[in-house]
């Protein structure tokens, strides 16, 4: 599983990245987490509001910062 955190580096983007790392830790699963800050790559996902979270190529949320517990629910 691969999780990508999309955002150009603002406070909310960093918060989402931290929440994602926390969710992965809670899940105990082997997950690759990557930050995507390149605006062209972000727009390549059709995302028009950041931060956004992409799990295995599917955008799960955009323009919001879900809590770690919610993100954990998406980690299978």
């Amino acid at each position, binding site marked *: 599983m691969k999780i990508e955190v999309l955002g150009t580096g603002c406070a909310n983007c960093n918060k989402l990245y931290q929440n994602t790392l926390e969710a992965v830790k809670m899940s105990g699963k082997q997950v690759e987490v990557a930050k995507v800050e390149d605006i062209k790559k972000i727009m390549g996902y*059709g*995302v028009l509001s950041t*931060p956004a979270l992409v799990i295995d190529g599917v955008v799960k949320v955009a323009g919001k910062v879900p809590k770690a517990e919610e993100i954990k629910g998406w980690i299978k």
Partner: protein
Amino acid sequence: MKTKCLCEANDTLIFSCAGSSNVGQIANQAAIRLAQEGVGRYFCLAGIGGHVSGMIESTKAGKVLVAIDGCPVGCARRTLDHTGFTIDEYIQVTELGIEKNHEFILDPSDVGKVSRHMASLVSKRRGT
């Protein structure tokens, strides 16, 4: 040109028909004008119809959804309805007395008429 950060708040999202008629193209041009004037952010209706996850999730983050259709076929409205989104402000270009044809010769004053009408609706909603 500097690219804007996508985290900038703008809670009004604008969708338009871009159909194969003069009124479809007027709807699209009016939506672009509204975005350029700062009324809202222009969003991609085709991405909603195509169930592109990034577009769908980005739309969920919007607070006010605005749609402009060219004619009573209502493709923009139907596309958003079908995906479960609720439209807050809506107009059809033909309701403003602009007749539908397939000649694609757009009168800039028609684009202005549509954009002003929608800007007025959004302004009333905001209480400004």
